[in-house]
């Protein structure tokens, strides 16, 4: 069927919309290059002073570091728990396990503000407010469903008979898990770990509630900068974040292409 006039018109519109989705963020680049001390567009002159400030400021650097530590720990913990859980659910595969799966996806769909409230409520008596442990635990609970989804997706195409075959050939449960199941779900685990990292790295709503002084993540500092709305350092931080996003995206695209090729072979 030949594409009609309407279809062509729609495709043009879709391209405009897609560019509308991506381009606004790019304004951070000129703003970060302004030579002035306040947020403004550069007027013919450019300066890197705000990047210099970003990378020499103790506050910003410690925020980068803290966010990195929290996101890596969250990613590791969520990947471990989520992968085990996905394999367990796949093995059990009953009416009850599907209920449990639906229940475990709730943290993903329940509004963040309610999650924030819940963690805040419980972290007060547990003494976890404003601590690494508190943030890592909260982010892990929010991120584990992502790992559950990606690993389950890898398992969906996995023939359970292979597991049976491995056991019949004398492999123990542990060996079967390590040598047969895990290699199969590796792409799901990597994707899940990456998603979990990004979720934690970018999380602000829950973080606003359960952190205060001693833990000050990067989104928290960005949030502050945005609210104060004066210091251009926040623009240079935004540029760094965009760069990190693009790199992470490229890495994941290459990985998934390699996996697709491996599966095709």
């Amino acid at each position, binding site marked *: 069927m030949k594409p009609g006039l309407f279809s062509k018109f729609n495709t043009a519109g879709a391209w405009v919309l897609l560019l509308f*989705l991506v381009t606004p963020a790019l304004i951070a680049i000129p703003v970060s290059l302004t030579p002035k001390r306040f947020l403004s567009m550069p007027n013919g002159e450019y300066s890197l002073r705000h990047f210099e400030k970003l990378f020499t400021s103790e506050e910003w650097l410690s925020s980068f570091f803290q966010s990195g530590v929290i996101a890596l720990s969250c990613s590791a913990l969520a990947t471990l728990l989520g992968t085990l859980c996905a394999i367990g659910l796949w093995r059990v595969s009953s009416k009850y396990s599907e209920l449990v799966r639906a229940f475990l996806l709730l943290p993903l769909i329940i509004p963040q503000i309610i999650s924030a409230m819940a963690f805040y*409520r419980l972290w007060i008596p547990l003494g976890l407010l404003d601590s690494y442990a508190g943030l890592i635990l909260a982010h892990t609970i929010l991120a584990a469903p992502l790992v559950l989804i990606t690993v389950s997706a890898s398992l969906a195409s996995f023939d359970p008979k292979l597991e049976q075959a491995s056991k019949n050939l004398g492999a123990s449960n542990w060996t079967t898990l390590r040598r047969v199941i895990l290699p199969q779900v590796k792409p799901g685990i990597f994707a899940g770990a990456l998603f979990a990292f990004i979720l934690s790295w970018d999380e602000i709503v829950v973080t606003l509630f359960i952190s205060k002084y001693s833990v000050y993540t990067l989104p928290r500092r960005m949030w502050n900068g945005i609210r104060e709305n004066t210091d251009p350092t926040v623009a240079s931080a935004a540029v760094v974040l965009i760069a990190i996003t693009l790199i992470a995206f490229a890495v994941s695209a290459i990985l998934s292409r390699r996996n697709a090729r491996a599966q095709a072979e």
Partner: protein
Amino acid sequence: MHALTRHIHPGWLIIAPLFLLVVTLYLGPILNILWLSFTDPEPGLGNYAKLGQEGAQLRIVWTTVRICIITTIFSVVLGYSIAYAMVHAHRQQKSYMLTLLLVSFWISILVRTFAWLMLLGRKGLVNVTLEDIGLIAEPITFMRNELGVLIGMVHYMIPYAVLPLLVSMQSIDQRVMNASRNLGASGTQTFWRIYLPLTTPGLVAATLLVFILSLGFYVTPAVLGGGKVLMVAEYISVQLLVTLKWGTAAMLAAIMLMGVLAMLWIMSRFMKLSTVFGGATR
């Protein structure tokens, strides 16, 4: 012990850690909040009664629902256009479109909010440009009003609308469309009477997903609304962190939660929830 393990599948052992963690550290406090909405500051339905009496609270709920409905309509319609173009594009073009969509999906919400702040302000790039080319004499007020909040929210939600629509459109058998054309229907007729109804599950999923996500949206309304447009999420945070009224906050959270669960239930009538979340169906 042996009798027990015989009846319980060993798979549950590795499900347990995450399950217990979520039950104790997540479900527990959420139930506690629901309980609080009936007990704080005093037992009874006082918090809920106040919602009916106090105009301010009711207005906030209404503002939230209205903004969410408008956001949902725009996001789903625009998302439909993108998904339609993607499904009908050539392979190379489609992969470029998907890249743009996913990149926008991945850009930090804070970066995007910051960008809107720079673009939409009185002296923002949009106003300056429009003034320079002489389209407007006075700067348009984009911020601290619902217009700004809507721009920011629709921008954030469009990718969430596209993904379920894309899944639904990709599963349509193109031959049905050809059959309709061969039987003499025009392109427009085919679209409205065949294509659109076939994408209903995707439309329902996209609509509810965007609506649910908009309901609890905090960052963009708080910044672009600039205190002038108060939505439930921001009101809850003020109740908790400033005025320390747990009961009121809990009541609003309970209502929001019930709304979300009700919508999930409706959604589950139209399609398997796990497919919406890209999960496993075996």
